[in-house]
């Protein structure tokens, strides 16, 4: 393992401090907790809290700020934050309008956030939750815990953040979140595994000519392993599955997110995006906006994911609204 760290057990703590020091105009750490919150507590709106394991930077703390999240809870690397941490975030940012927890669909995340929600409700705090499950690689059936939540969460944060900022009620904000969740799909591939600092070694191995297809963002193995292919074929593989699940017709509008997993250069992400654009355009889909970069990473994993969000008029307006956070800006 070769990483720019100090003690492996201190990575999350030191990362949070460094992040807070980098963006004091946006965020601060809740002293004694692994929670990043907006420097200017906003009242008169629904408070949004997201979070999950660390190792996905800039997710989720990088999206705390105007027009997106009010707080982000940072768990240990690839490990859901604990209920007491989430509860602290709820107490810090709660408003009379209520709190919406944005959860990615992992067994641990759902359980820990639900326990925090029970703690909040016991204290009379109005609290609700949504669970995003955008990864089409995982078959959704009654036999599994359902799909994972991955990079689509970034688009969810953006749109729900705008909805909350505009003063909508908790019920309305939740309904918009459900609409985004119903319309966003993602799938990814990896060329290399990643190393959790405290584990010190990779969670799986890949030969030089292999890629892992349909994996999540926690270094967990994917659903299959294939020989590496040229960029265009990789994108075809991913996009075919994404579009099979959420078909786009001629004239539909969409947002594209080509997300790097941490170890893939922008050069390759742009090459990938070129093919995404070509495939969608050839179907007559109108690409309303394209985002290329690192938003939901998996430490130093090489690879990418492609997310497609189908828009309607309401989602389009909210997507375009102003956001000003450390890792995502929109000028409205």
């Amino acid at each position: 393992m070769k990483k720019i760290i100090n003690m492996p057990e201190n990575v999350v703590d030191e990362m949070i401090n460094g992040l807070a020091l980098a963006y004091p105009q946006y965020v601060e750490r809740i002293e004694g907790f692994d929670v990043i919150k907006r420097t200017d507590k906003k009242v008169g709106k629904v408070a949004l809290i997201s979070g999950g394991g660390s190792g996905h930077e800039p997710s989720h703390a990088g999206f705390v700020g105007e027009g997106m999240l009010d707080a982000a809870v940072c768990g240990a690397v690839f490990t859901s934050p604990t209920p007491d941490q989430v509860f602290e975030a709820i107490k810090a940012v709660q408003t009379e309008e209520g709190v919406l927890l944005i959860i990615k669909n992992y067994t641990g995340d759902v359980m820990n956030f639900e326990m925090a929600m029970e703690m909040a409700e016991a204290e009379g705090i109005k609290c609700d939750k949504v669970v995003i499950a955008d990864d089409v690689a995982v078959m959704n059936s009654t036999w599994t815990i359902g799909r994972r939540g991955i990079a689509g969460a970034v688009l969810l944060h953006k749109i729900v953040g705008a909805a909350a900022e505009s003063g909508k009620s908790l019920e309305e904000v939740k309904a918009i979140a459900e609409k985004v969740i119903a319309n966003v799909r993602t799938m990814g591939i990896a060329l290399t595994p990643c190393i959790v600092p405290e584990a010190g070694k990779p969670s799986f191995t890949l030969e030089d000519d292999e890629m892992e297809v349909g994996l999540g963002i926690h270094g967990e193995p994917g659903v299959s392993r294939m020989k590496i292919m040229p960029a265009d074929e990789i994108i075809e593989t991913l996009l075919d599955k994404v579009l099979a699940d959420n078909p786009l017709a001629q004239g539909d509008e969409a947002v594209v997110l080509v997300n790097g997993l941490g170890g893939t250069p922008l050069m390759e992400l742009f090459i990938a995006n070129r093919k995404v654009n070509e495939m969608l355009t050839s179907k007559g889909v109108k690409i309303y906006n394209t985002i290329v970069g690192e938003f939901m990473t998996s430490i130093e994993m090489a690879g990418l994911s492609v997310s497609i969000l189908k828009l309607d008029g309401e989602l389009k307006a909210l997507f375009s609204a102003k956001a000003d956070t450390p890792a995502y800006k929109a000028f409205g």
Partner: protein
Amino acid sequence: MANAELIKNIILQMAQEIEGNKEYLTGLDAAIGDNDHGINMNKGFKNAVIKINGLGSQSISEIIKAAGMAMISHVGGSAGPLYGTLFLKAAGAAKDKDEIGLLDFTQMLREGIDGVKARGKSERHEKTMLDVLIPALEALEESAVAGGSAKQAFEKALAAAEEGVLYTKTIVATKGRASYLGERSLGHIDPGAMSSCLLIKAIYDLL
């Protein structure tokens, strides 16, 4: 079967057992999960030991509850809420008891398991800790009816637990992160099942 002193020592023994198998558990998790089960369980039990040592003289219920709270606050992932719930529910069932017998323990474990089922929305045969805990409970219940010492009862429970661990190798995961792998989870031991087995072993060793 046990007083507060022994219960405390059992939890300290559990912590040692988990620490000794930290890398092994993490390795099992790397194969079908996310490579951190041993690390997180060790964190939880280390904190449980600190909490329990700081308690002074306390009841069985308070000792187990402190361990449960440490799990919830320090383990994270799914293991935190599940083991936390297991311990908290067991603590609830031990309330006001200065000494527990085998029958009391089966009641505590049964309530703990019910809590785990509810929290994880899961059942037996889904390649989880329940595939160890439920057979162990059944063995204890049989022994409680048949009579005999607690040590003998836990010998059978441990054998059932170990069998449960091996059973998880033969089934596909339908709960937890391993479920994403589908058929690829076959042939691997469930890390949560293994950690549960280690906890039962710790009880057996100290009786």
